[in-house]
């Protein structure tokens, strides 16, 4: 039944764990829609025929000018219809929450869209253009941003899509059911070559993925439909396999981050990065915030919005000066430091202030 309807409705393969569930709602909704439209039209057509002028003139008893329909019927139909819409809404909203909230253990990959290509960066240091390698059977969380205009990351086989907005981070997660290849399409109009901004997700068996990640096995051959378009750069190019944490250190040094922030817990002008990621820190204007990707990015792009208590308002904005890949690398660097304890002798990992309970909140 599933296969039949999927074929009739021209839906692509159900390659992610949520695809089949979404398709079931799809069938329900589309059948009701088609049925409703046909039903209304048939009733309308029947009335047109039954109450046609010639028939009414022959049989005047059919004519009932000004009769209002039974009001209860109308109320029942409207309530029934609204009830059905509510069912769609409830199921749709629950599925939407599933789509939007990634599982805790998801593998994170950074995606950058630019006119007109996709770039993928892995925390372990690998990166690729146009082809996203993921392990099958394991949730993957994409952290997306754009270098220029708005794009949209769409994998029809997964039934998933998310806009890729410059100056913002958005996320999308999925779990590929089994090894295979799937189209990536850009669905937000982004300029002259919008329609060629395509790519491919290649889901690998977990061990294959590990080997690929270490640069041992470039582009394994995977069975599956291959789209014979003139492809942009789909080759995997392991020019230099640098761990993202190392990249982050390099970027942090280049951009002068380390002039104010330390990596080992020594107090300095800005909060140290040691043990910072994942904790909850108090803010200057009251309240507190969890140090996650969103807050770190905000602090780089727009540092004065939420200032950590006890630090001066001296950090400049890096908006437009730091590349998205560097942002991601710095975040990875901070993640790698989450378990670093302060050096012996340093007063507190938070620099010059002592912070109450919240300090141990995250880790």
């Amino acid at each position: 039944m599933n296969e039949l309807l999927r074929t009739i409705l021209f839906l692509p393969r159900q390659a992610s764990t949520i695809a089949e569930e979404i398709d079931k709602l799809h069938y329900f909704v589309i059948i009701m829609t088609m049925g409703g439209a046909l039903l209304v039209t048939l009733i309308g057509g029947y009335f047109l025929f039954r109450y046609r002028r010639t028939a009414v003139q022959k049989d005047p008893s059919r004519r009932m000018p000004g009769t209002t329909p039974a009001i209860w019927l109308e109320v029942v139909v409207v309530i029934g219809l609204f009830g059905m819409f509510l069912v769609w809404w409830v199921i749709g909203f629950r599925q939407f929450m599933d789509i939007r909230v990634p599982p805790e253990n998801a593998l994170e990959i950074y995606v950058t869209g630019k006119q007109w290509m996709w770039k993928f960066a892995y925390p372990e240091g690998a990166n690729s253009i146009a082809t996203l390698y993921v392990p099958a059977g394991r949730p993957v969380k994409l952290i997306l941003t754009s270098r220029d205009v708005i794009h949209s990351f769409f994998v029809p086989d997964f039934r998933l899509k998310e806009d890729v907005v410059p100056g913002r981070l958005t996320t999308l997660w999925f779990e590929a059911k089994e090894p295979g290849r799937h189209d990536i399409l850009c669905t937000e109009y982004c300029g002259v070559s919008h329609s060629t901004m395509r790519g491919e997700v290649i889901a690998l068996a977990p061990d294959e993925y590990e080997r690929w990640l270490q640069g041992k096995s470039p582009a394994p051959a995977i069975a599956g439909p291959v789209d014979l378009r003139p492809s942009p750069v789909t080759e995997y190019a392991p020019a230099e396999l640098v761990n993202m944490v190392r990249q982050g250190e390099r970027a942090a040094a280049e951009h002068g981050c380390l002039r104010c922030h330390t990596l080992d817990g020594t107090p300095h002008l800005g909060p140290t990065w040691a043990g910072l990621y994942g904790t909850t820190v108090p803010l200057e204007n009251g309240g507190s915030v969890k140090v996650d990707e969103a807050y770190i990015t905000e602090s780089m792009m727009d540092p004065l919005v939420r200032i950590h208590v006890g630090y001066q308002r001296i950090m400049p904005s890096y908006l437009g000066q730091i590349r998205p890949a560097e942002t991601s690398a710095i975040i990875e660097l901070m993640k790698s430091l989450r378990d670093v304890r302060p050096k012996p002798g340093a007063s507190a990992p938070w620099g010059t202030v002592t912070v109450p309970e919240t300090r141990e909140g995250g880790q």
Partner: protein
Amino acid sequence: MSQATIDAETRPDPLGVGADHPDYLRADSGLRSWLLTKDHKRIAIMFYVGVILFLGLGGIFALVLRTELLTPEQTFIDANTYNQMFTLHGITMVWLFMIPAIPTVFGNFVLPIMLGAKDLAFPRINLASFYVYVLSAIILLGAMVAGGADTGWTFYVPYSTTSPTAVTWMGIGIFVNGISSIMTSVNFIVTTHTMRAKGLSWHRMPLFVWASYATSIIILFATPVLGMSLVLLALDHAFGLSLFNPRYGGDPVLFQHLFWFYSHPAVYIMILPSFGVISEVVCSFSHNQPASYRAIAYSSLGIAFIGFFTWGHHMFVAGLSEFDAGVFGALSMFVAIFSAIKVFTWVATLRGGSISFATPMLYFLWFLFLFVFGGMTGVAVATQSLDVHWHDTYFVVAHFHFIMVGGTLTAFLAAAHYWFPKMFGRLYDERVGLLTSVAVFIGFVFTFLPQFLLGNGGMPRRYFTYPARYQWLNVLSTGGAWLLGAGLILALGNLVIALKWGKRAGPNPWGSRSFEWITASPPSKHNFEETPEIERSAYEYTLSEEVARERAKAR
């Protein structure tokens, strides 16, 4: 010969009120008498010519698009031209055809007559509205020649601010177009409030007036927001104002909020007038009063109101919070309920009627199917998890074309046939009318039904080239588009031929009870020489015509 009172038992004047005066087409002559006219009917005719021209232009753009999509790779135009074409198709169709079409042509023509008035409240503003429309069209056409635009009609930043095309002038042209819409809608609202004939209470008005009134309210409150966003966009494109530019901390998503705050209600600006047309057509041809007058009248206001709070459903995957998405999704379903009430009421109106079948009625039948299907797919795309897949694919394209073309264009054609005798005093050829209507319907279904499947398959909109697996559906769609185009040209040709060679219509060829049919066809310059007193509703069909005639005789 004028008629002072119109009540349930008055026998209509066989020649129509005002038949002893020269009709509006002949009352004055010369080009000047047209270009400087303050007569709402002549202004309506000028708008008619304008919107038909732009329907043609937008149609040509559409056919170029569809033809290009015959093959997965480049067919006959390059990517730049293609991107220009879909943008210009959208801009032309939305602002130069859909939004003005029914209100400025048929609203202008029949609304004052329906109210028993001699003209709109502000004839000069009405004429100015036409010239502002022409000005906006000139600016937009100028911009099309001088660089065009390749941003899509939605002008999403930051792409639109960096596009090398004439985005600034497009923004200005649309801003000016909005001024024209606002002028017309102020005129309609004020006319409805102050110029109803004596005795014509709100609940006696024809339903078309209610629909126009609700439309005008939306135009009045939504258009300025669009105007402002486009001014900001134009200033950004021209001078780097950068209010939405991430480089200065701006948020591109704010533009989307502002844009859709207008452009979602704009969907109702485009569809509500066609609800009005359909209500008139159904009642007139089934010779029956609406199954529930109030349901139709008030649901228009309901749509106008709720329509302002659903814009977020265009942004489910743009980073809207889950909570907001849920609220916008639920509100969108409310709007559908109001539309459903209307559909049920139309169908129920047929029951117990005495239905004469003519071209407008056939268009009503198409409307019923296309609008219900299009509307319910609208609820489908408001279902969040499904929208994630469908967003910005051909499914959405098919959905809104079902509403805009299947709904509004079909209603526009119904209105063009229905009021043709009133506007020009002649009858079009009924058989040709029915045939072209069938051609339009089949062409439409072949154009847009495959696009639902394309969307299911995942083909994104605004794609110049596409994966080869989508080709056969695209070929079907292109074939349908050519048939649709041919059907439209034939339907228009049928009406144009009837202008000169059609049979004389008489004041009321359809046997309608609505007030515009009391006047002569075509109406005299002042519609009613003496403002009538109206003592019945516009749908007084309970007294059959025979009974009414006998009673009149007995008196």
